[in-house]
């Protein structure tokens, strides 16, 4: 079984992102970049399926600029067998990214596609579901457990009220939630080995897709700041304030 894992290069989750001075966009000058945390979970799950003998090959894919090769190398160091960069100089929206990924998946015809449920930059939570629609595959989003059973997968999903298990025919799209697994760290020998693994670059222009933006970013601003609070000295004072000042308890 072949597994494709689409990943994304994003601002590191520890970075506090701020708007540019003219509020035209976020300020990404000199910030640390990393693989989206949910994508690390997706890579880990695919690699574990390979280690368990269920999968035979894991292919990491990303759609982005040349510098996204860095995150593909990380994926290779974590255990992916080869990588594909669909190269573009434009900042694409999720629909356009899903279209590009669908072309790669049509060419590779994997049985399973695992990707993160959302990227922590745009917080859109769209690409996996869109990809499933474009390919007419079944989808199992927000997965906390995956088991492969012949021509289908049984996936436990984290939903608002608890957990839901569904059966989805393969090939299928699975998006990862946080508790699916705990990703490993890449070891130094594996980082060295990853440099020699195959990384294929495909220009997006050759795919003949409509990737024109549908949304215009008008401005980026800071959220309204909260008024500065106070420190109370005791539980008694706290309860008093909540009753008499904030009036939120009686």
């Amino acid at each position, binding site marked *: 079984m072949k597994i494709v894992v689409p990943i994304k290069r994003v601002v590191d989750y520890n970075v506090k992102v701020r708007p540019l001075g003219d509020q035209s966009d976020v300020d990404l000058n000199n910030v640390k970049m990393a693989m989206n945390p949910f994508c690390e979970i997706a890579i880990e799950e695919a690699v574990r399926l390979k280690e368990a003998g269920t999968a035979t090959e894991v292919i990491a894919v990303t759609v982005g600029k040349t510098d996204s090769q860095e995150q593909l190398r990380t994926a290779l160091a974590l255990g992916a067998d080869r990588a594909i960069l669909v190269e573009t100089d434009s900042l694409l929206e999720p629909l356009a990214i899903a279209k590009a990924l669908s072309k790669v998946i049509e060419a590779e015809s994997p049985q399973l596609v695992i990707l993160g449920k959302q990227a922590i930059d745009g917080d859109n939570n769209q690409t996996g579901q869109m*990809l499933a629609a474009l390919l007419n595959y079944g989808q199992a989003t927000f997965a906390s457990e995956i088991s492969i059973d012949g021509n289908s997968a049984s996936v436990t999903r984290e939903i608002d009220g608890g957990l839901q298990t569904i059966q989805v025919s393969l090939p299928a799209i699975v998006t990862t939630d946080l508790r699916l697994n705990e990703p490993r760290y890449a070891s130094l020998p594996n980082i060295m080995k990853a440099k020699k693994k195959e990384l294929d670059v495909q220009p997006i222009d050759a795919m003949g897709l409509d990737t024109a933006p549908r949304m215009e970013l008008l401005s980026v601003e800071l959220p309204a700041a909260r008024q500065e609070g106070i420190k109370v000295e005791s539980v008694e004072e706290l309860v008093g304030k909540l009753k008499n000042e904030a009036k939120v308890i009686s």
Partner: protein
Amino acid sequence: MSTLVIAEHDNTNLKPATLNTVAAANVIGGAVHILVAGHSCQSVADEAAAVDGVEKVILADDSAYENQLAESTANLIKLISSDYSHILAPATTFGKNVLPRLSALLDVQQISEITEVVSEDTFKRPIYAGSCIATVKSSDAVKVITVRATAFDPVDASGGSASVESISADGVSDLSSFVNEEIAQSDRPELTAASIVISGGRGMQSGDNFHLLETIADKLGAAVGASRAAVDAGFVPNDYQVGQTGKIVAPDLYIAVGISGAIQHLAGMKDSKVIVAINKDEDAPIFQVADYGLVADLFNALPELSEQL
């Protein structure tokens, strides 16, 4: 201009997030219709028809929609989409599952989790865990949108008298099927609907210690939540999680106990009206958003708080 709101429900009751979504539809303007897709869900359609300001309810009552799986639900919405300029669903795990699939079927770039309607084509939405707010303008013919429920005050659940039109199942998919569900049972209010929430973090040290929060929650009629750190540590299940990748809450009172206040947690609760933080580390970032901060050991403070309520 007219808007279709996708109802969130459990085949018996309409979920409150639907009312917040109708509120967002009202700001956009034009007629508002609600789609109820489910099985044996006439009671939900009746509830939806009573929602203030709704003109029509479309009811698709069929076993194919019992569990509202994404494939069949998205296909159904697509089939009736041509009548609408906007299609909205709450940004719950249901809405987040179905709407992007619909959006790709319609070749539309979805606008996720809006917190403000600026005009019929322009919306505000948080990005980077709420560190920034983006204003975006969509050029798509149909706007497919998920709505952050806490950002819109709910419309009245009564006062409306919409007509109910039944439609048959169509475009049913067998790509996925329901196996089972484990829905957490609790006498406490739902996290996203509670007017008071008390949450614990890694500082709680164990799942057992959450009973300290539960005692207080029961006195206040509050829901119990948790930070991702507490969920990851296995103290409580994931449906407790408040934050960027969990639930978004905005109660009248949010009490954060033993939570340091990572940006990912703040993203899920900083729009609460009053925030209380109890933490023994006086430099914890949670104090920067707290209206009332108490620097104390939670194992002393919680029993004392419980006693005084």
